[in-house]
């Protein structure tokens, strides 16, 4: 299992229901191990399997849900 991490910076979030929406969507996505939304920082941290999905694909899915991504930072799994 290749553990890979990516942090997506979104525009500021305002509704707490967004957290559940985004997290649920990501966790359901094939290849994603875990996802957490930092509500107040407007960030999404995802740990996923690089063999099954890429950060660019994750970005597309987040944007498709209605949350434009500003920047993406990638790194091998540390935390």
């Amino acid at each position, binding site marked *: 299992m290749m553990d890979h991490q990516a942090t997506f910076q979104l525009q*500021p979030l*305002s*509704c*707490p*229901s967004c957290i559940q*929406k985004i997290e*649920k*969507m990501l966790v359901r996505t094939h290849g994603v191990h875990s996802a*957490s939304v*930092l*509500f*107040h*920082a407007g*960030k999404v941290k995802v740990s996923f399997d690089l063999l099954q999905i890429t950060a660019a694909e994750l970005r597309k*899915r987040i944007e*498709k*849900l*209605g949350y*434009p991504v500003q920047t993406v*930072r990638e790194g091998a799994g540390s935390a």
Partner: protein
Amino acid sequence: MIRWIDSKRRSLTGLSGSLILAAFAFHFADLKIWQATMLLTATLIASVPIALHAVQAARMRLPSIELLVTIAIIGAIIIGEYWESAIVTFLFLLGEYLEFRTLSKTRSALKELIESAPLEADVIRDGGIFTVAAEDIRSGERVIVRSGGKVPADGTIVFGRADFAEAALTGESTPVGKTVGDQVLSGTLVDNGYAEMLAEQVGADTLFAKMIERIEEAQEAKSKTAKLLDRFARFYTPATVAFALLVYVWTRELHMAITFLVVACPGALVIGAPASSVAGIGNAAQKGVLIKGGDAMNRLAQADTFVFDKTGTLTLGKPEVTMIETLERIDQNELLRLAATVEIASEHHLGRAIVRAAEKRGIEKGSPPANVHIHKGLGIQAHIEDRQLTIGNRKLMQTELVALSESVLTYAEKREREGHTVVFAAVDGRLAGLFSIADPIRGDAPAALDELKRLGVRKFIMLTGDHRHTAERVAARLGLDEFHAELLPEDKAAFIEKLKAQGRIVAMAGDGINDAPAISAANIGLAMGGGTNTAMETADVVLLADRLESLPRAYSLARATVRNIRQNITLAIVTVAALLIGILAGTIHLAAGMFVHEASVLLVVLNAMRLARYDRKNKDKRPPAHVQWKKTEVDVVKEM
């Protein structure tokens, strides 16, 4: 297209609002058709972004509040309630906008911090000066810092001198002069001067970046209340759906069922507690205090007993060797050289004092020691240049069977009564000399303790591995209720457990590795920012500014935050309960319900916003009734 609509949200909200006002005018002019047209147009305009989000979520097979509202609107239009549909959509958008505006205020403290992060840097590469983005600096590269600029990486000054203001990191704004060999940290402001530094940590590895990340995570770390609310929300949402269905089956009124669904959304309940802790944590961060989450905030507010480590917490932790006594066999500088070489391996304050003393005298250290063994809370042993060195306190000498003569003990006790810590040094199992080390009390300690007492803390206790006489002097000077000396790290932790068993809520403040067990045993652990990483990682609260005076500030802020959370939860529960009863009684309709619902969300966020500006000086002026300025055992100590 979708982005365009999202970016036009504000204009759409404004447009639908003015159409509703126009409809209101037509209502009085008795132009029914015009009124209906206006209202329908308003509904349509405002429902575009709502329906859009509903569809986006539905496509991913996720339910959303937008979907509920969209269903409610369609329902309202079908039954001809145009007023209702227009006002509900308008309020939904307006509420979202206002929430966003106010929430960003509660987040402002952290945002300011993030914005003070350095962006660009001038580096010297291949003999030329280049401007690069701060995260593109390579570790080991030479970076130029000028007055007015920001330090772009963590590193050491290798040329020049400058004054640095570390406000972003510690909340302390007075600039500090630094020169060759001094450490500088990313995010600090160069007040004036010119210097060149070697970058060591860059980008996300700098202390500044790590601190921001920790604060971001702290703001998300949920308090027990928040976790409870989360669990509550998990069954609450399906429960309301089921209940709404029940209402429909019972009353056959689709309208009432939908109203029930929309209004029952636990908006204020979900956002109330987190908004307060975010504002509180942000405010604390600006004052140089890192509080790791809402739960830590809660426990800090409840603490009634404060326990302090002595060295590095109540004192400056920069002890100095004031005197070296040697027995005939060895020369003073030679003993200092041996001791300093061994103590290089130690992280202990006293060990560092010995190393510093050697550096000050310009003594070259010997070859690295072998078989280093650190006895926590006792001292250190190592093999060096074919000699066995044992450096530490009395206990270590006893366990290692180093004989201490009557005259040595009398001398040591005399030095200790004068406020020194005495460190014994033995070579090959025989005592070779004594180091007298003194460590001054922090200047802000008395005021900080007084302030905590005024805020209602009942008991102050000091724990130290140091000798009894030294501890006694510090305790007497600061007017502590109790002190316990000559403790091992596990003794400190055991003592904390004992206090907890007595029903006290214990805060433990420390700075060293040896304090870490006690810090984690306490109900709430605090670490000094100048201390070791272990202490800072273990603690729930870090005084980044490394000043004790920020402790009472954090304490009163934590209390204010907990009060604020309670107010918000009460407000939210009362509102939802009143609304649901009103709906079931048939006195509240969708638009009014929506209005009250959105208003309650705004109210809790506004209430939380007060915390972002909370300043200790305006509040808590009167001392709580139970504080008694009683004279304690300290008097007894003074007479000794």
